[in-house]
């Protein structure tokens, strides 16, 4: 699948890119700001995206997420503070909390890839907080 990475820390972005490629996917591009991200969404039509919330132009990852949701592109947030994600997760499938582990990211990527390809039989890994679970936690927590 074609993956877009929205992340302003270039070292982390490049490392994630390597992991995505090792798992057999293509990275359509790395965006460090919301404007770069919006351009890439239209230009490269990714199948999936990782979106950090804090980008070079501020906490604009949420807007990027809403744009992706509007374009029908599944994505997950990658953030150091998933408590700050707005209710409803802005249309995201879920979130991976930083600092993620190599295994955590690998397991999440496997699960997400299956979901994007229409296979919903797998169970989500511990490293991935699903939007609906976060909902339930907020409602009953």
């Amino acid at each position, binding site marked *: 699948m074609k993956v877009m990475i929205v992340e302003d820390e270039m070292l982390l972005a490049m490392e994630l890119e390597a992991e995505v490629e090792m798992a057999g996917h293509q990275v359509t591009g790395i965006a460090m700001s919301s404007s770069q991200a919006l351009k890439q969404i239209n230009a490269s039509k990714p199948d999936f995206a990782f979106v950090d919330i804090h980008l070079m132009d501020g906490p604009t990852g949420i807007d990027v997420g809403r744009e992706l949701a509007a374009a029908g592109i599944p994505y997950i947030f990658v953030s150091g503070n998933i408590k700050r994600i707005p209710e409803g997760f802005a249309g995201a499938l879920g979130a991976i909390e930083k600092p993620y582990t190599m*295994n955590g990211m690998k397991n999440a990527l496997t699960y997400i890839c299956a979901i994007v390809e229409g296979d919903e039989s797998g169970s989500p890994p511990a*490293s991935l907080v699903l939007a609906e679970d976060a909902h339930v936690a907020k409602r009953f927590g």
Partner: protein
Amino acid sequence: MQEKDQYRTDARNAGDRLVAGHVSEDPFAAAFKATRMPMIVTDPNQSDNPIIFCNEAFRRLTGYRDDEIIGRNCRFLQGPETDKATIAKIREGIAAGHDVAVDILNYRKDGTTFWNAVFISPVRDEAGTIIYFFASQLDFTTVKSREADLAAARHEAEAEVAKNTANLKAALEARTLLVHEVDHRVKNNLLTMASIVKMQVRITADYRQRQTLMSVLNRIEALSTVQRKLFTLDDVSKFDVSEFTKELVTDLVDATGRNDIRLSLDLSPLLVPAVKATPLSLIVNELVGDAVRRGLMDGGGDIHVLVKRLNGHFLIRVEDTSEPVEPDIESTELGRMLIEASALQLGAEIERKQDGRKTVVDVVLLVGDHQENTH
């Protein structure tokens, strides 16, 4: 003027008659005259209910002479600052023949004011007709001014509290911002460190060297998992060992890619002070990692992890059954050192039992409640 003088004479006569009704040694009359409480008697049967008798205490309080008092209605004590509603209350009480108790601002002869707690009560004859009104006065100006002082002091204190609260709020906001910033940096730095090691792994050709780097990465990532699990509880000073263990073990086992590893978890919430999070987590990471390296990774098997309270102590048990393989010596040695150091730091006891293909390691953290609550 003539008429007024007549009233005065009438009032004086009435007062004289009142006194004459009592023999000179009448203790009630003597008490009335000598008491330190200002008192008067008025006659409602005369025009305008004049004062017909007052005691020495009343003259001292008001500064008037006897002849300036007798024959006048009490209202001569009122002045411009006297509350109209209070005056009305007295008037209504007298008209209805009730007791009246009010606090009123009165004026002395010299024009100075005093706060007067007045009590007025009708005196009735045997037929029930009101023949006199009796009134006692109490100067409570000092109480009143103390009240004002207290009120002023309270306003001042409230203003001070409001100021301090605003300062504290600002300080708290600054602190919260700082904590978020520091937390964010620690998380980013951990991920950056891990990324640097992973980059080195990718460009290292030698298998042994790559193994060593992965061994370091595994420990950095254990700390990453700790950092993620810190500050997630309502009580930020606590860390849930079970939450950590669940995520660490499932991620580790999932990532082996083997579906012949049967993982079972028996985890009860186990809150420890945040300061114990790192050494405890390193121990769990080493025990589980060791089980994976000793055989699970190669031939599959069973792994069971238990976290619970036991007789007031904390028990962490890692139990695995697998076909043993020779583990990497260097990684095993690092694991042994990390467990030893962490156990020493925590004062934890570690017991390891091996029975054929089965290995059981118990970590017992001896905690009194006092220790549990220290940060």
